């Protein structure tokens, strides 16, 4: 619910900078509301409630199955600490790289039109539908030591598979498209008249982007960052295929969960809860940051 409210304030900030809000305010139901409207609201609530329950109950089942003592015990295990550390480091790097390369790609797709535009648009979405194992296999066939690019890297003495670099590359391949697509739709929703106004004030393209576009789309960008980061954190299939599994080098938290599930179900559930807690903390922080940014730019 809070999430939805944030979304509304986020959008109104994009549509109405400077406080002159012409965006639709949140609906308030007056006393004269008809029966049909009440039925609509009731159905809406039931469907939305069913949806949230559908998401919540399996997560609650995990929590109920893992006693706090077991979670605390697992948090002190060296293999869990190593996997957690590796996951945090690699997802941070892959998200930063995803933004550095993905933001220009999103701007290109949202603000320009050229032959092949539609092709690039689809290309930036394909990794999100590709089964992750296939994505990992594709990376192996490209950067593996007998792969398309990898065989030349191999001559230079560079071998990527089974290294932490491979973990980061797998995460970027699978997660960065989430950033690009979300950032792109954020940019598309922003009317170009704001940039035009900036240009009439003799702003350079960089200034127009830095001082006008970026503040207005930053809530959308934070959503995009959150999505990409979360997808990278949960990444399993591409990582196990391209980077393999070696504790401390390529064993990320999701892989540690899977390995544990083969011998010790309780441990795997406890580690899953740790994974969930980390995701919740980061996504909530990003959500708060987005709310703050929205407020800052709507006053």
């Amino acid at each position, binding site marked *: 619910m809070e999430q939805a409210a944030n979304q509304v304030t986020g959008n109104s900030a994009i549509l109405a900078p400077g406080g002159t809000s012409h965006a639709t305010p949140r609906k308030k139901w007056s006393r004269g509301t*008809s029966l*049909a*409207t009440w*039925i*609509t609201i009731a*159905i*809406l609530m039931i*469907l939305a409630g069913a949806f949230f329950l559908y998401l919540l109950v399996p997560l609650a089942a995990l929590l109920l199955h893992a006693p706090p003592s077991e979670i605390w015990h697992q948090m002190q295990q060296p293999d869990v600490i190593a996997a957690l550390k590796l996951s945090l480091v690699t997802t941070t790097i892959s998200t930063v790289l995803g933004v550095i390369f993905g933001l220009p790609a999103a701007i290109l797709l949202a603000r320009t039109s050229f032959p092949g535009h539609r092709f690039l648009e689809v290309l930036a979405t394909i990794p999100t539908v590709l089964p992750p194992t296939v994505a990992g296999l594709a990376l*192996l*066939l490209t950067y*593996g*030591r*007998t792969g398309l690019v990898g065989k030349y890297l191999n001559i230079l003495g560079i071998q990527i*598979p*089974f290294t932490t670099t491979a973990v980061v590359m797998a995460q970027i391949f699978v997660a960065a498209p989430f950033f690009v697509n979300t950032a792109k739709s954020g940019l598309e929703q922003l009317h170009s008249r704001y940039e035009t106004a900036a240009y009439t004030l003799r702003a350079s393209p960089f200034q127009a982007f830095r001082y006008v576009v970026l503040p207005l789309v930053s809530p959308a960008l934070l959503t995009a960052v959150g999505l990409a980061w979360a997808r990278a954190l949960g990444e399993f299939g591409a990582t*196990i*295929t391209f*980077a*393999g*599994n*070696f*504790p401390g080098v*390529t064993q990320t938290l999701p*892989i540690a969960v*899977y*390995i544990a*599930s*083969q*011998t010790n*179900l309780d441990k795997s559930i406890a580690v899953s809860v740790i994974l969930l807690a980390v995701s919740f903390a980061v996504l909530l922080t990003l959500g708060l940051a987005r709310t703050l940014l929205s407020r800052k730019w709507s006053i």
Partner: protein
Amino acid sequence: MKHFPRIMFLLIAACLLLASCGSSGSSGSSASTPSSTPTAAPVTINVFAAASLTAAFEEIKTQFQAKNPNVTITYNFAGSNTLATQITQGAPANVFASADTTNMDKVSSLVNTPQTFAKNKVVVIVPASNPGNIKTLHDLANPGIKIAVANSSVPVGNYTLQVLSKMGQSSEYGPSYESAVKANFVTLETSVSGVVQKVQLGEVDAGYVYVTDAHSAGDKVKSIDIPDQYNVLADYPIATVKDSAHASTAQSFVEYVLSPDGQAILTKYHFIPVG
């Protein structure tokens, strides 16, 4: 406000759709119940089998169904540990064929007495191009060699460690051999197929797999035998699941696997027959 009728219509349509899905689901399950009662009527049994049995069990299915036209066999192939977890969580298995006794033991309270129906052993495979120039088991200890193994939680990974331990205790190889080979591990795969894949693609110089995997990988890999004195014979146990429907059909499937015909098929796929 004038859009409300349209929204209402859509919402009601959505509700009806959900309701109809629900009812079709329940009618589907009620339709399957009567088919289980008469003896001559078609029977479907669910066989949960270790992934390494895939090819052999597909042929056994063809033969068994030809002899029992009313029976349909549905396979669930996965890692033995995954299957054991699924059975513990109440998955509708009639028969469980595991790649090791450990995972069969995990479900011992849910199955009837298991019987060993095949054996397998460990072998080293190298890519056909042999980038690590591995000719003998000694070469696996050379520095810089990349080796893929299955994780110790996977049966074949556990057997691999047992093999290395036996070699480490021998006078021919010794403890330094064991540690040197282990230092060359670059990945601990979550399944034996992961090991085969990485060797087939030439991304590692060698991998430890079952002798059956080495044969099904075909020309893309070459295998180096591990002498029996160091090798581990993996027992494959099979059992019917207690309190499941079609107990007699499940039992006859197990008997077929243990019969000379079933054993011949397993031998064809390079399993070691029992007895």
